[in-house]
Structures are given as structure tokens and as C-alpha cells.
């Protein structure tokens, strides 16, 4: 059997040409890599007929930094640092995924305090990530005010986390074997203050965007993704849940202390952009609930059960650990050959798999709907390219 390797140039040449209709002609338009609504450097090659999108070919690699190759030359403690820079909006969860893989492989059992603190920070960061997404969605749809609201509340939460961690974006807080530092004495009180502050703000979000007729018109029945397509195209996280599949690793394969808290997994019904929007806004409320339940019960203990040095070696084998970040399942696949560096380290990034839902979502729809649908996917491009 022969295998043909094509190139983008050939693909565009093959697909161009006149259509059957005499008065319109299909043409290609480049969207990106420098485009304000692609959230970074995603490039979409759009085949258009008038304003209708016939094909949408994502072209990647404008921020491919070869993290997997670099990781093969780093010890496990250093690999954690690079994950901050992949999906920078859920950096603590990325750290945790690698830490979890290394801990499971090396047989390190962390204590309850560490698991509580990790869970609290993961949920706080999920809120933070969704706040930014909410603001940027508004901006993509042409409203500037939501961006200011989202960033305003994000800064409030940022201050709380910064007090413990010391960084604003690339947190680098979770290490294999524990945490970088213990929580600040003020932490619990300040998070409580934040929850008191943010609850009414969520209602304000609803007044501004959720109940806004224009936003509803722009999102409802736009970019419909059926449950079957979502599963086949590898979607996870809010994208999959928006399509009506109630799958959340926090519920189905609990890690941290998610099995001890009471929360609901919001699930959409239609699978349009509106459902994905609604799922994320609802997730912020659920995250607040989780944090509230855990805050008062943080058990005493060490914040680092075992100080690992850079020479840690994992036993030979393949290890896979996954957890639910703000965008879906992040999987870490480590192949170890008994050295202090991983033989192969692969990240299953949620955005890489969610991105491919864009074409089935948007085929035949208008180009303006593409912006709303893409925004509802909440893509982080450096996580796609790694």
C-alpha cells in the first residue's frame, strides 16, 4: 500500500477552483497567525463561499517550542517547570499532573494536608481561568466591558494566591512529593473574603452577559456539537460536558479530595456555544462550593512529605496520570528507563483534542459565528502546540 504525504500548498491548490454556481466563487482566507480573536497564534485557513465557511483547516506550529524534546533532557523536578508554560491559565493543575505521575511511579503517598491544599488551589485556578475566558468571550463578541469585569475579579483572586505562591501567572506551586511552600497564615481568611466578594459578582456576570439578548442570539444554536461527534473527536472538559456527556474526572476517577466534597457537574443539552458558555459559568459556582467545603477542614501536617532531589529515578515502565484542568483532561505519559531523565514524556493536552471539534461545529455557518464558536472552545494555543 502506498502512503502519500501532502503539503498545505498542494491541499489548497487541490481544493481551490470554481464552484458550480456561476455567480459566486470559493476562495481561501487566512485567519491568523496574528489575529485578535484566535487568542494567540492559531492560524485557520478558511475556505469560504461568500460569508459561509466551507472548510476550516487549522494550521499549527507557530508556538511549537518542542517541550517534549526538552523534557527528555531534564530531570523530573525540572520537567514540572515547563508545564507552567503550556496551559498557563491552569498552571497549578499542570504541575499537579506531572507531580501525580511521578508520585504514583515512585510510590510516594502524600498526606491529607497536601491533597486539601492542592485541591483548593486547583479550584481557585479553575475560577481564575474561567474569569479570563468570560471576559475574553465578551471581547470577541464585540463587548469590551466584560473584559474589564473579568480582569477586575481575576486580580482580586490573584492577590490571594500571590500571597502564598509569590507568582502571578506561572505558579509552579505543586512539586512531586508536596508543595513549594506552606499556605500563608492569612490564606483561609482571604479566600473566605473572596468568596463573599465573588458570589454577588457572578450574579452581576449573569446580568451583563448571560441574560443579554445579543449574547444569547450570538451563541444559541451556533456551533452545535453533538455528543457523538464530541466523543469521536476526542473532546473533553467543558466542551464534552456542554454536549451532554456527564464526564468529569473529578467525579468519575476522583483524585485529590474530590471524593470527600459535594458538588455537581453541570451538563448541557444541545451542545451549542451557549451550552458551553453556561457550563463554564456554572462551574465557577461549583468551584466556589468545593473551596468553601474544604477551607475550614485543612488538616495539620507537613507541606512536603518527601524532599526529592534532582536525581530521582523512576522504575522502568510506562506511567500515565490524568486530571481535569479548566479545559479538559491533561494526560501525562512517562516512559522511564531507570534514568533520572524521562525516556519519553508526552502530554495529552486538552486543547489539542478540543480544537478539532471546530470544523464539524462550524461547517456551513457564517464566519461571524466562527468567532463565537471558537471563543466557546476556550483555546490556549501554547497548550496545543506544546
Amino acid at each position, binding site marked *: 500500500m502506498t502512503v502519500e504525504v501532502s503539503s498545505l500548498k498542494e491541499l489548497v491548490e487541490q481544493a481551490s477552483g470554481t464552484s458550480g454556481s456561476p455567480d459566486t466563487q470559493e476562495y481561501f482566507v487566512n485567519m491568523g497567525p496574528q489575529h*485578535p480573536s484566535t487568542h*494567540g497564534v492559531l492560524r485557520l485557513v478558511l475556505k469560504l463561499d461568500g460569508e459561509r465557511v466551507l472548510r476550516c483547516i487549522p494550521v499549527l506550529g507557530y*508556538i511549537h*517550542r518542542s517541550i517534549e524534546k526538552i523534557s527528555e533532557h531534564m530531570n523530573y523536578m525540572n520537567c514540572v517547570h515547563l508545564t507552567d*508554560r503550556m496551559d498557563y491559565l491552569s498552571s497549578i493543575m499542570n504541575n499537579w499532573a506531572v507531580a501525580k505521575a511521578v508520585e504514583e511511579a515512585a510510590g510516594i503517598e502524600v498526606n491529607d494536608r497536601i491533597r486539601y491544599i492542592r485541591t483548593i488551589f486547583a479550584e481557585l485556578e479553575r475560577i481564575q481561568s474561567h474569569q479570563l475566558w468570560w471576559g475574553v468571550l465578551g471581547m470577541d463578541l464585540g463587548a469590551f466591558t466584560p473584559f*474589564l469585569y473579568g480582569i477586575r475579579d481575576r486580580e482580586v483572586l490573584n492577590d490571594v494566591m500571590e500571597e502564598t505562591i509569590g507568582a*502571578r501567572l*506561572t505558579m509552579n506551586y505543586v512539586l512531586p512529593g508536596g508543595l513549594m511552600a506552606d499556605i500563608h497564615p492569612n490564606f483561609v481568611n482571604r479566600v473566605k473574603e473572596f468568596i463573599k466578594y465573588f458570589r454577588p459578582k457572578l450574579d452581576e456576570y449573569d446580568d451583563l452577559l448571560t441574560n443579554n439578548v445579543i449574547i444569547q442570539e450570538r451563541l444559541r444554536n451556533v456551533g452545535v456539537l453533538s455528543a457523538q461527534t464530541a466523543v469521536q473527536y476526542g473532546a473533553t472538559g467543558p466542551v464534552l460536558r456542554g454536549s451532554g456527556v456527564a464526564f468529569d474526572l473529578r467525579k468519575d476517577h476522583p483524585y485529590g479530595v474530590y471524593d470527600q466534597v459535594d458538588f455537581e457537574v453541570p451538563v448541557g443539552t444541545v451542545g451549542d456555544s451557549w451550552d458551553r458558555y453556561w457550563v463554564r459559568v456554572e462551574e465557577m459556582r461549583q468551584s466556589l462550593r468545593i473551596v468553601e467545603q474544604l477551607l475550614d477542614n485543612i488538616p495539620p501536617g507537613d507541606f512536603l512529605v518527601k524532599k526529592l532531589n534532582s536525581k530521582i529515578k523512576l522504575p522502568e515502565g510506562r506511567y500515565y496520570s490524568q486530571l481535569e484542568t479548566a479545559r479538559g483532561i491533561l494526560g501525562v505519559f512517562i516512559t522511564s528507563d531507570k534514568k533520572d531523565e524521562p525516556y519519553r514524556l508526552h502530554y495529552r493536552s486538552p486543547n489539542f483534542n478540543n480544537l478539532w471539534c471546530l470544523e464539524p461545529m462550524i461547517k456551513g455557518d457564517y464566519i461571524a459565528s466562527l468567532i463565537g464558536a471558537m471563543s466557546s472552545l476556550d483555546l490556549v494555543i501554547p497548550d496545543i502546540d506544546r
Partner: protein
Amino acid sequence: MGIVTDKLPGALEKVPGGNVLVTRFDEIINWARANSLWPLTFGTSCCAIEMLMATGGPRHDMARFGAEVARPSPRQADLLILAGTIVKRMAPRLRTLYEQMAEPRYVIATGACTISGGPFIYHSYTTVRGADEIIPVDVYVPGCPPRPEQLFHGLLTLQKMIKEGETIREPGVRRKPVISALPEGVTMEDIQGEMKELLVKENVVDVHQAVDKLKWPSGTNDGS
């Protein structure tokens, strides 16, 4: 008059019916340029959140420095804030964007990646080691990612550079690139020189003196 007469070097002369400000044309132009920078929204990765989003937000508010009119089109922008890693595939596009920007154009490189390649410098087959391999950079802002305050310091540094910089007689003449986090008057060369001096001082041994100081333990070496 306050703000104009305070900020601009020149002489204010009272004439019947009002005041006349006498100054150089260059000063006026540079003053205007420095205070109305229009940045291009060019964010590739993590730094974009801090540099473009957090600074545009209400807490830090870039509008205080007259640089909030972020434009997605390079034709309408004269300040390129590089936020995020530049890889080989992006490099020609970055060059194109830079060349399309309106003259005179300025570049601020923020974050470790755009300065040197940052954490992706070794064993990477794509990461460009510093944006200055592709386009000239005026101000470097270190950090991974830098805080918004650091960007503002870089922006103020650039404004100062612009005010002291170009003249109509010599267009395109720029000052050397600066790192915004360094104290005033200290350059990269000073730091490198100081480090070299220190290394030499610590690692050079005067052999004769060292031998003199060395005392052999008694009874091990004599008479044998």
C-alpha cells in the same frame, strides 16, 4: 499651560495678549510620540496574559501612560510589545509585522523567551534564541513573565529614550538597547565587566605566596 511648560524644555515669553513658548521642533515631536504610543496586540504565549490583558485591565490600566490604544493591525501601530516565545515558524511573520508598522516604530521585548529563548534555549529545535535575532529591540523587560509593573517601567524607559532620541536631522538614529530593570546609568557591559573581574579575582592564585603560607606537617617530610 502647566503641563506643556513643565514638561518641555524651552522658554516661555510673555507677549501682549498671551504667552509664546519657544522650543525646538524635535522636542515637540518626540514629546508627542512618547506619550501616544499605539501598541500592536502581538501575544504568542504566557506573557500575553500579563502584558496585554492584565495591563489593559482596570487594576493596572495602561491608559495612564497613553499606550492603551491596542491595535490588531500593524499599519496602525508604532509599538510592538513582544509577549511570548518566538519560534522558527513565527519568525518570518514577525519580521513582516515589524516591517508593516508605521515609522518610527519601537519594540519592547518582554519575558525571558524574547530576550534569550528563556527556558526553551537548550535542546529545542524550534525556539529562536532572542527576538533580536529577527528584529531590532529597543527595551528589554526581564521576567518569566514580568509583572505588569515591570512592563510599565519598560514603557517609561522607552518614553525617556524617545524624548532624548531621534531628531529630524538624523532620522533613524537610536540609542543602544536597554534593560529596563537595571538601575539608571548601569549598562550590560558594566555588569559583564564586573562579573569578569570578580571571576578573575577569585580564581587567580599567587603561587609563590600560597607556597609560603603552606606549612608542612612536622615529621612527615624531613630526613627521608
